[in-house]
């Protein structure tokens, strides 16, 4: 596995090999950070701190999990630490009786690729940090429930509940944004 190869190189003193990890994981790390802090500049600082902390903590990485799981855990912790400082939260109210079957999704499908990307990311910004984080980890990075639990430090049941609520809230935001029937 490439990650193991470059880890061994770094442990032997070849610090420039760390660029491999920065290049490979920076985009997803940035996506995770934005999910939590909702601001690109703050997210960039979070990811920077996370990569530096990961480099300094490489000795403690025992390869019992994937490197990505370990790194994303660091990114998540840094992001929530930053969020505490920022004291920012954007929450959408959960509507218990929302029926996503009634939504007409043709409006969304008729948009072009860039517009769809924009609406999805704007919707994710409006979700709470926990919900947008868990959606990106589960659906975008395709981590399992167990891996999401390891990254966030939450119990698996909390991950499932948050995921379920996040999906419903996403549909709610789409409905509001695109005036679904």
């Amino acid at each position: 596995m490439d990650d193991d190869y470059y880890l061994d190189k770094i442990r032997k003193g070849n610090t420039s090999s760390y660029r491999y990890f920065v290049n490979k994981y920076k985009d997803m790390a940035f996506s995770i950070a934005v999910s939590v802090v909702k601001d690109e500049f703050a997210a960039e600082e979070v990811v920077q701190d996370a990569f530096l902390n990961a480099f300094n903590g490489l000795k403690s990485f025992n390869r019992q999990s994937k490197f990505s799981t370990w790194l994303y855990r660091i990114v998540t912790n840094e992001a929530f630490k930053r969020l505490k400082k920022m004291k920012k939260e954007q929450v959408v109210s959960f509507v218990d009786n929302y029926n996503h079957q009634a939504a007409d999704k043709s409006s969304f499908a008729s948009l072009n690729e860039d517009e769809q990307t924009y609406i999805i990311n704007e919707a994710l910004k409006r979700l709470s940090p926990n919900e947008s984080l868990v959606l990106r980890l589960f659906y975008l990075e395709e981590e399992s429930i167990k891996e999401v639990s390891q990254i966030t430090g939450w119990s698996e049941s909390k991950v499932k509940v948050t995921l379920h609520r996040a999906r419903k809230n996403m549909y709610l935001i789409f409905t509001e944004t695109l005036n679904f029937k």
Partner: protein
Amino acid sequence: MADFLHEDEKFRQMMQKSKLTMPFQDFEDRIMQKIEDSTQAKSAVLKDIRISLLFFILGAGYGIAISLFLPEILSSISGIPTEEVLLVFRVTFVLLVLFLFERLLKLLKKYGLV
């Protein structure tokens, strides 16, 4: 159930569009530069720690030598019996050694040498 799985798959496809790319082009270079700087700083600190350890050992050795051999060389210092002077010296010496040893240990732990 089939509908739910189908919806879940569509949701998954939709979420693939949520991947963001790091918008700062020089991000990698900045990170690697910081790592290079911190590695060099750590190397310089390690050198200073080695010198500190050397002087700590020399100072402790010198203090022990004074404590053991001074009574044999001088019977009094400025009119004060050597034993009394040595008592104060030994207490101060032990406290200083413990204090400096604790500080050195913290420093070694901080840089992962212990």
